[in-house]
């Protein structure tokens, strides 16, 4: 018997439901608590999620569930490459979040704009560098000066 992706999804959902139940059980009981309790709704949701997971497995066994948008029908190698590209962008965004307090908002944003554009297929050129730099500066002027938002300027600024 081979397991389909929906089988794995159903099983994964059941594991998630169990983990969520366990986390709900850790919620402290307050003296102000009502009859339902702070853990009441989460536990109900955990049960509902587990039931849905089980139903998905059963439904998949009885009749394969049609896939979502048809994207999964792509060649596995293409799919893997697509996922890797997406993972690269996630890494870039994560790097932005890490570097934001260190480099400061204008510089980090300029790097994000330039980096994502290059990653998306734009050619590294003086024009691109200028667009990224102007973008970082323009966004900073808008948010920091016009809206008055406190944005980090980086640890390197005096």
């Amino acid at each position, binding site marked *: 018997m081979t397991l389909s*992706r*929906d089988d794995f*999804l159903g099983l994964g*959902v059941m594991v998630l439901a169990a983990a*969520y139940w366990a*986390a709900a059980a850790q*919620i*402290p*009981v*307050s003296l*102000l*608590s*009502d*009859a*339902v*309790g*702070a853990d*009441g*709704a*989460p536990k109900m*949701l955990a049960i*509902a*999620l587990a039931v*849905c997971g089980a139903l*998905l497995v059963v439904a998949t066994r009885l009749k394969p*569930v*049609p*896939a*979502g*948008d048809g*994207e*999964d029908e792509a060649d596995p190698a293409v799919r893997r*490459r697509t996922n890797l590209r*997406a993972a*690269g962008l*996630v890494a870039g*965004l994560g790097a*932005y*979040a890490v570097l*934001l*307090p260190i480099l400061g*908002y204008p510089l980090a*944003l300029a790097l*994000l*704009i*330039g*980096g*994502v*554009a290059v*990653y*998306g*297929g*734009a050619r590294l050129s003086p024009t691109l560098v200028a*667009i990224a730099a102007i*973008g970082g500066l323009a*966004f900073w002027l808008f*948010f920091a000066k016009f809206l*008055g*938002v406190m*944005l980090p300027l980086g640890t390197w600024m005096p």
Partner: protein
Amino acid sequence: MDILSSAVSALLGGWTLPAALAGVVWGILGGALPGLSPSVAMALLLPLTYGMDPTAALTMLAAVYVGAEYGGSIPAILIRTPGTNAAAATTIDGYELARQGRAGEALGISLMAGFVGGLFGLILLTIATEPMAAVALAFTPPAYCALGILGLSVIASLSGKSLIKGLISGILGLMIATVGTDPVSGVSRFTGGSPDLLGGIRPILVMVGLFAVTEMLSQISTPAWDKASSRDTRLKLPSFKMWKRLWKSQVIGCTIGTFEGLTPGGGGSIAAFLSYNEARRWSSHPEEFGKGSIEGVAAPECANNVVTATALIPMLSFGIPGSNSAAVLLAGFLLHGLIPGPMLFQKAPDVVYGLYGGLFAANILMVLVGLVILTPCIWLVNRPKPYLIAFILAIVVSGVYATDASLSDLWLVLIMGVVGYGMRWLGIPTLPMVLGAVLGFLVESNYRRSLVLARGDHSIFIQDPVSLGLLLAAVALTAYSVWSEFIKPARKLKNA
């Protein structure tokens, strides 16, 4: 007659008209920025109104609300990023239309549907405040809980091809809503000790992650789109023929928007999703929904904009702010020494009627501003894809960070983007999750408050007539959706 003359003199005599224009422009900008909610856009202007004439000040704040609720639909249609919670339903068909090169048409429909909704709501606000305000008072905790459940009943029709996956998505959304401080006892839940999560996860962050970041993750590895023709980059207002097709969805949007606006806490999100669902049910072309239906844009946009006016009815009549935006407007009233409630209409009728005039002007100005800015907006999203993705992400990360200056929000949006990407791959619809995240707190907090009031007796939900009516509507809606979405097509397939 008093109302009309006060409104006209307020518009012509002072700073009301420029205030309305400034408010609309600021509101559209604030609404279009993901993460910056209408209430935040209003709150940013609040200190500026201190020295202004009360009518102009309140008009400016209300105009921001009108502009922001409309502005949220612009990124929803163009870049699959709802600028406000209420614009999430517009994303479904608006973005599909944009992908088909019909962004100008979608934006034109959303603009005019919003205008119709705004005017309809304003007429109700002007002539029926007193009788309709009674509806707001009929809402007790059981009714609020039932209202939330009615909103959740739309999940079945948002589930796409698999009802089970739709339910899983909805439950995951409800789980997201349980993060933060418990609404009754005050203990923290699922925060992992992080103070940033004590206030819960804001639904707009879930939406920005699930829609915008997920879309960019998908787009980054697909080939660049063809250059849009000049026809595709122009705003296109609905023709008479199109109006004839849209009237039904507009009536649905107006009706549901009126009801939801009157119920404090109901808000534009429930109105938009319910209207979308009903428009689909009553449409002659239900098969187009989800694939680029013009009615799927008109109904939620109309409902959403009706709410901006009708939500003011409980606020002006009883001083009950039904939403964050109404609370900021209430603060504006208090800042000028005006106390909303029954006496407001006796003590400061000129301000109230001037506000009505200002809102009327704001709706017209919304259309005029829209006519000016929308074509450049469409042009902008047709720029080379690598730059577009880079700037969309720049807007997203900046808007998200700007609201609370919180890195946690950034990480949260990124995580939701990855979750959304995974859900796409697994064929799990994301809209039920959004609905769960939006309505979870409303349902749970009012469910538990009801039980506290009834000393644990669940019959309170059927003893309260409003609650009973809403629950019956939810059951009927769910049953109909399950039947029409799953049982009917299965039978048809079997008989074929």
